[in-house]
């Protein structure tokens, strides 16, 4: 991909993907359309605009959600191109201030949150889950992957906000007789926030630490498709060889066994009439996370899982599957443009309300967190929380 070509292509285009871009939908101007962002980079390269914090900030006005790329019949890679300019912005010191603050936190804690994830795992996590694993390392063998062939990589957002979901995931999987350990390496973040910040150097350093650890496993499973994309694709694109296979938990859940077991409490409640019988049957709508859907192509597995426990397919957002609309949390937008990010989430929630569903189910901890952040009263859960007892 040559940014000169890709930016030029957009500049000659009549903005055919603008309708699909949640950022331009929220900001409603020309600069934040894929055309506007790419044209600005082109004008900078041609010396017609200066490379300054204002122009550089447009490289960060992107959720990296690939909505435009999906619509674009030329397949022009807008997020990937803008990423190149993020790298340049970061290096030249003119990326938005919150980006540097976030990277600083990352450098201190090895994840984008100001906490030690490993400590959080230890304190929030029942010892039995960790120690009770076949062939799994124990906490005392911190840093060693053990000899389990399959490991569950929770990812920083899940550990930070939904530690109990990790326990439920492992319990559920082990209940299905899957031998899976918990990934317990000192670093528990894939580094995508560094990549999205444009700090390629730190991202590379982190990847170099993570790769030998990941290589110990035949398969890495996760509930976060952003982590999977980072480890499976970005690491490889950077030239690292890794034969480990990566899967989203929804791709691996054995539906018959999920359905065959006792219907989990929550799903039962949903399929038999909701919490409040007065309001009629409660129902579920499924939101496609960008990294699981457009990046990974997984659309049907989560829907089938929902159907297997509720007995009916989930309700659909008007924009679903490859046309899904980002939750607003991608590409560091919540820290670089919090207002725009919030508006995007509100747009998506408006669409959720139009489905008539009472419960929003999705398959990404980042999406769950974002929806909850904007509407704390919303009944939004991850797929695992929805089906696990």
């Amino acid at each position, binding site marked *: 991909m040559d940014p000169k070509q890709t930016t030029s292509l957009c500049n*000659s285009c*009549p903005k*055919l993907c603008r309708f699909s871009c949640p950022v331009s939908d929220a900001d409603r101007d020309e600069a934040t359309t894929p055309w506007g962002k790419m044209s*600005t980079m082109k004008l900078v390269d041609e010396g017609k605009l200066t490379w300054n914090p204002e122009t550089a900030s447009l490289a960060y006005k992107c959720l990296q959600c690939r909505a435009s790329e999906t619509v674009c019949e030329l397949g022009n890679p807008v997020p990937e191109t803008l990423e190149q300019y993020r790298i340049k912005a970061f290096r030249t010191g003119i990326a938005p201030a919150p980006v540097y603050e976030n990277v600083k936190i990352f450098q201190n804690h090895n994840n984008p949150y100001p906490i030690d994830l490993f400590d959080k795992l230890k304190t929030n996590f029942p010892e039995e889950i960790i120690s009770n694993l076949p062939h799994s390392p124990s906490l005392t063998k911190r840093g060693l992957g053990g000899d389990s062939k399959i490991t569950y990589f929770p990812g920083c957002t899940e550990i930070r906000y939904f530690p109990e979901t990790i326990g439920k995931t492992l319990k559920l999987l082990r209940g299905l007789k899957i031998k899976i350990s918990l990934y317990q390496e000192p670093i528990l973040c894939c580094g995508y926030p560094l990549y999205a910040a444009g700090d390629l150097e730190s991202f590379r350093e982190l990847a170099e630490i993570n790769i030998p650890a990941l290589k110990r496993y035949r398969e890495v499973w996760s509930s976060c498709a952003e982590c999977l994309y980072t480890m499976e694709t970005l690491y490889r694109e950077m030239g690292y060889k890794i034969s480990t296979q990566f899967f989203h938990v929804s791709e691996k859940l054995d539906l018959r066994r999920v359905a065959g077991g006792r219907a989990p409490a929550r799903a039962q409640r949903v399929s038999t009439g909701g919490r409040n019988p007065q309001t009629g049957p409660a129902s579920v709508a499924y939101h496609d996370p960008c990294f699981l859907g457009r990046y990974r192509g997984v659309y049907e597995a989560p829907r089938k899982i929902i159907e297997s426990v509720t007995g009916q397919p989930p309700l659909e957002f008007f924009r679903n599957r490859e046309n899904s609309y980002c939750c607003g949390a991608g590409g560091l937008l919540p820290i670089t443009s919090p207002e725009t990010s919030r508006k995007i989430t509100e747009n998506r929630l408006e669409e959720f309300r139009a489905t008539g569903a009472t419960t929003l189910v999705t398959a990404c901890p980042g999406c769950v967190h974002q929806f909850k952040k904007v509407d704390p009263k919303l009944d939004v859960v991850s797929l695992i929380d929805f089906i696990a007892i």
Partner: protein
Amino acid sequence: MKTEFLKALQKIMGSERVTVDQTNRHLYCRDMMTGSLLELKAGHQPHLPDIICWPENVREISQVLKTANRFRIPVIPFGGGSGVSGGTLPLHGGLIIDLKRMNRIEKIDGPFLKGIPHYRATAQSGILGEHLESQLNRKGFTLGHFPSSILCATLGGYLAARSAGQLSSRYGKIEDMVEAIEAVLPSGQIISFDGRIRDYKSALPRDLLVGTEGTLGIITRARLKIYPKAPAARYRGISFNQIPHALTAIREIMQSGLRPSVIRLYDPLDTLLLQFGYETGNRTFPKKIGKLLGPLKNNLFHLLIRNPLLPQKIFSLIPSDALLILGFEGDANLIEEQEKKAIEICNHQLAKDEGEGPGRHWLKHRYSVSFKMPDLIEKGCFVDTIEVAATWDKLLTLYHKVRATLEKYCLVLAHFSHAYPEGCSIYFTVVGQTASREKDYETYQTIWNRAMENCLEAGGTISHHHGIGLLKSKWMPRELGEGLKFFQAMKKKLDPNGIMNPGKMGL
């Protein structure tokens, strides 16, 4: 003066929604007129606006226009910037008013009498076409307006440029869909749906402002006719080996009272593009010809584009068909009957029914051709479209005249679409390449000059639905004749200081 004006705007809208920054000035310096892109590629200086603002309601617009009038600042309304006639070019700098913050469907109402379906939607003018249509679809309705720019144009732009969609034969052009508009005149006067214009009390704002491309005021809301989504649709391809036969068939279909939703005839070269532009779908051309012309996609393509007479000569020697796409929407039984009748008419003109395949293929790829344009431009070509129209008696002469003249400069493809009982529009696509971008720009200007001259000489109209803007401005005296004087008088009365979109539409 400008600083004071800027301060006044900031007072109206707050500083967040008014900008003078370089990035925005560059991004609002053109629309999608091929000429301005070629000019920029050739290194010409852009026409930069001085200020850009994003109002959120009609009152703000009213105040802005009052202030602009006080300071005599040019004002250019901006929708999606997808216009192809230079309508939004800030020729004299000034203020761009971007309307996209006004993007809501405010109301959907109807039916107004029990059992008689009549529905309408009230929407703000800054809504994108695709958002308008998909939000109506969610409620089971359609506007029936599907221009190829639906993905990137706004309702205000549709109305200002009198846009036409691909299903215009059934639903009409945008001016047929709009019942009423709310607008702001240059003086700042707001005319509501039922309001009257002070100086033209007997004229409805809709009739006065629709099609005036921001030269007389700003459209802020519109009340539109909408329809429950059609329960059934049928699409077909019918090939003809003679264009005149095909045109007779189209005329007879339209004059017989049938209401196809789509009726588009691609001339042989455009038929080829329709099929070769995309990877899949039925082909009406024999495979051998396909193979022969396959290399068009590769390097040979540039050679041929630079010597357009050659491929056109070769092509005229190959017997090839013109493809008619015929579509109907509505009650399943009714449209089946209508389709039968239309095919019967075609058969009298030695047509070959190609079945559903080409029709479905067209439907699937109906916006795809827009994506070809940036690709071709980046491959070093220039591309443009010239849409003219004429009554049936003049149509074929117009087609041959324009085609024969342009063939010397570029590859010319054409399709006949937007058919009416009295006539039809012709949509020429021109693709060319010269030795340099500067030369491209000169050739492009020659192409337009020749096309417009020939169109007027043949008795056609120079614009069916892309508007006049800057591009066709100089032909307005010949296009409108005495009518231009009326338009100029109206302009003088409504916009005495000439602030609204100066330099456009022959004003």
